[in-house]
């Protein structure tokens, strides 16, 4: 039977990603035991706290997505929506996509980081347009074009960095360690200009408004496991690239300059996303706009770096990655059962698919920041840092937008999960792999909400010190 072959692919995949996850955790322990000193291998690989953190996000969510993929793709093959050959192509693309995202935090050379990020766009566009429908190809096209323009601007910023590095600091290479050592002598005027290009360019890929137009289309049209990866990991990886350049700019320009832009982009993202969430009809689009809002929150947190905001922002990045992955996987189950993306046709999930229904309901609470889940901690920390910085008006605006998003999500999700199922809807049970994926992600959401592991805490503190340049 064709679906058995798919199951075999999937299980091999999961084994690989579990190995990767274990390797990442081992790396974390080894790194912290070594006093958090950066690891520099052969000049090509450079690992410091920031790299380890983003690697952790990538491996955790990839592992969960690989588990979820098994059941999802199996169901698609059984429903005859895609052939076995296309399922095999899916796994190949999935692995290629994860590979490109995994190597970004590891690379030393900033141009190679740029190329890896461009590759993520190109590979994931195939996954966005996987079903070859009109909407998905339109979404894939928009995704490719807008993200490629964005990172082309980022390339211009990289060239300005290289120019000032070779002219003023005498470092004629794009290697991170070398550039960091000469960063004190960069020309502030050029760096200010370059940072704008980098922020706008990589910010497009990170989903910061007003460059976020591709995000709702791409994340809603992609396959659900890939949506989880896109929303959870890819936009954080772009943020990683921005942070690398901010760290390079700190000695010459100072963190306050970048902080202004983080606050600006973050605020605009939150407000726009909050407004759009209220009028959504498509479940996955709703979740995509929630991603825009959350990345805006992360950016806002990063903007208040001097008041502990970086810690809060990065924590929010991790928590959102895990929670959004969970939500997208639940949405995948819902879409598969109800055979449509439209939320008006989804009702009473808790009666038809109890496990997925409960997971979605709890995931919704986690997403909007209810205790005892993890996003509560990180959102609260970001707001605390805003209050400590005495930006009361901005904090009030943020709270209003978060409340708007909460209202929108509450209305839609409660209608989907609770309520009477419509007539004549029969669904199959969720596959076992979906349940395993939900439980795995739930451990992180609940666990980090109750107590953040000490290693992780230390890692985030290190990242904060690194970025602030202390």
């Amino acid at each position, binding site marked *: 039977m064709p679906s058995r072959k798919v199951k075999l692919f999937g299980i091999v995949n999961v084994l690989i990603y579990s190995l990767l996850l274990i390797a990442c955790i081992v790396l974390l322990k080894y790194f912290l035991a070594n006093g958090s000193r950066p690891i520099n291998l052969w000049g090509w690989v450079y690992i410091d706290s920031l790299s380890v953190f983003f690697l952790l996000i990538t491996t955790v969510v990839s592992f969960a997505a690989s588990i979820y993929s098994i059941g999802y793709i199996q169901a698609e093959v059984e429903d005859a929506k895609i052939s076995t050959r296309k399922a095999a192509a899916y796994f190949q693309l999935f692995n290629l996509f994860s590979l490109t995202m995994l190597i970004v935090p590891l690379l030393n050379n900033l141009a190679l980081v740029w*190329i890896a990020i461009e590759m993520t766009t190109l590979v994931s566009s195939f996954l966005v347009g996987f079903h070859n*429908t*009109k909407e998905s190809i339109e979404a894939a096209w928009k995704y490719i074009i807008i993200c*490629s323009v964005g990172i082309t601007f980022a390339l211009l910023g990289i060239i300005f960095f290289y120019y000032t590095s070779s002219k003023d600091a005498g470092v004629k290479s*794009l290697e991170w360690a070398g550039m960091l050592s000469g960063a004190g002598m960069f020309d502030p*005027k050029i760096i200010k200009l370059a940072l704008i290009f980098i922020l706008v360019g990589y910010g497009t890929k990170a989903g910061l408004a007003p460059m976020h137009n591709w995000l*709702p289309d791409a994340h809603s049209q992609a396959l659900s496991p890939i949506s989880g990866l896109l929303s959870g990991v890819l936009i954080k990886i772009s943020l990683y690239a921005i942070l690398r350049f901010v760290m390079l700019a700190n000695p010459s320009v100072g963190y306050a300059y970048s902080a202004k832009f983080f606050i600006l982009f973050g605020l605009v993202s939150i407000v726009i996303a909050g407004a*759009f969430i209220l009028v959504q009809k498509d479940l996955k689009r709703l979740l995509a706009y929630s991603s825009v809002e959350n990345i805006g929150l992360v950016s806002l947190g990063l903007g208040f770096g001097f008041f502990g905001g970086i810690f809060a922002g990065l924590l929010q990045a991790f928590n959102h990655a895990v929670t959004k992955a969970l939500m997208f996987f639940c949405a995948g189950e819902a879409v598969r059962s109800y055979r449509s993306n439209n939320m008006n046709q989804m009702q009473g999930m808790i009666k038809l698919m109890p496990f997925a229904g409960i997971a979605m309901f709890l995931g919704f609470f986690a997403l909007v920041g209810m205790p005892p889940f993890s996003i509560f901690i990180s959102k609260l920390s970001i707001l605390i840092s805003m209050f400590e910085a005495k930006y009361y008006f901005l904090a009030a605006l943020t709270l209003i937008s978060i409340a708007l998003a909460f209202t929108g999500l509450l209305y839609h999700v409660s209608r989907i999960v609770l309520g009477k199922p419509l007539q004549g809807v029969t669904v199959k049970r969720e596959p076992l792999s979906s349940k395993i994926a939900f439980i795995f992600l739930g451990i992180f959401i609940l666990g980090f909400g109750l107590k953040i592991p000490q290693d992780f805490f230390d890692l985030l503190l290190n990242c904060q010190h690194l970025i602030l340049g202390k």
Partner: protein
Amino acid sequence: MILNIILSGFLVVTFLLVISKRITALVRTFRTQSIFLFLYTLYMGISQRHTELFIVCGLVFVLKAVVIPFVLLRIMRRIDVEEDLGLLVNPQLSLIIALGFTYLSYLLAHNAMALKNSMESAAFVASITAVCVGFFIMVSRMKALGQIVGLLVMENGIFLAASAIAGGMPFFVEIALFFDVFVFVVIVEVFVYKVNRLFTHIDTSKMKSLKG
């Protein structure tokens, strides 16, 4: 003096890009721009005598002046769409806007970058004009191929900027960037075929089903 001729040619061809009304005209003008880029890199290579610059120069020619225009023109032959580029902004207004970009890039070169050498500043102005014109073409042309060519023009401009102010990027970075552009064109070619098969046109202004 030769550098002046090459840079003037590059600038004139960049302006020719904004007044192209047909897709094949746009692609051929892009090819001419790549040839001027090749001549610029060749001149730099001869005056600095680095073998690496010659290799980069050869790559510019093979990739941007031969292969990529060939691929784009092949797309035009295979998909059966009309040649009209679908201008959202008429050619004369586009030229005025391109003129504004030139002035903007001059301001950037003079104030922000404070480039002293006049040759560097001239090349930098031409390159930033090309980047802005590429972006403008992407935004103001309705057909999908117009957007692709706009992106490629932006890459041309960035390459020229790197050559002008920084003497070119480190060697293997250039190689990697060329590879990346090539992969981009290949993948986008696949997508244009997909778009054409599904929509029977490649008019992105008509792809409006995803809203809100």
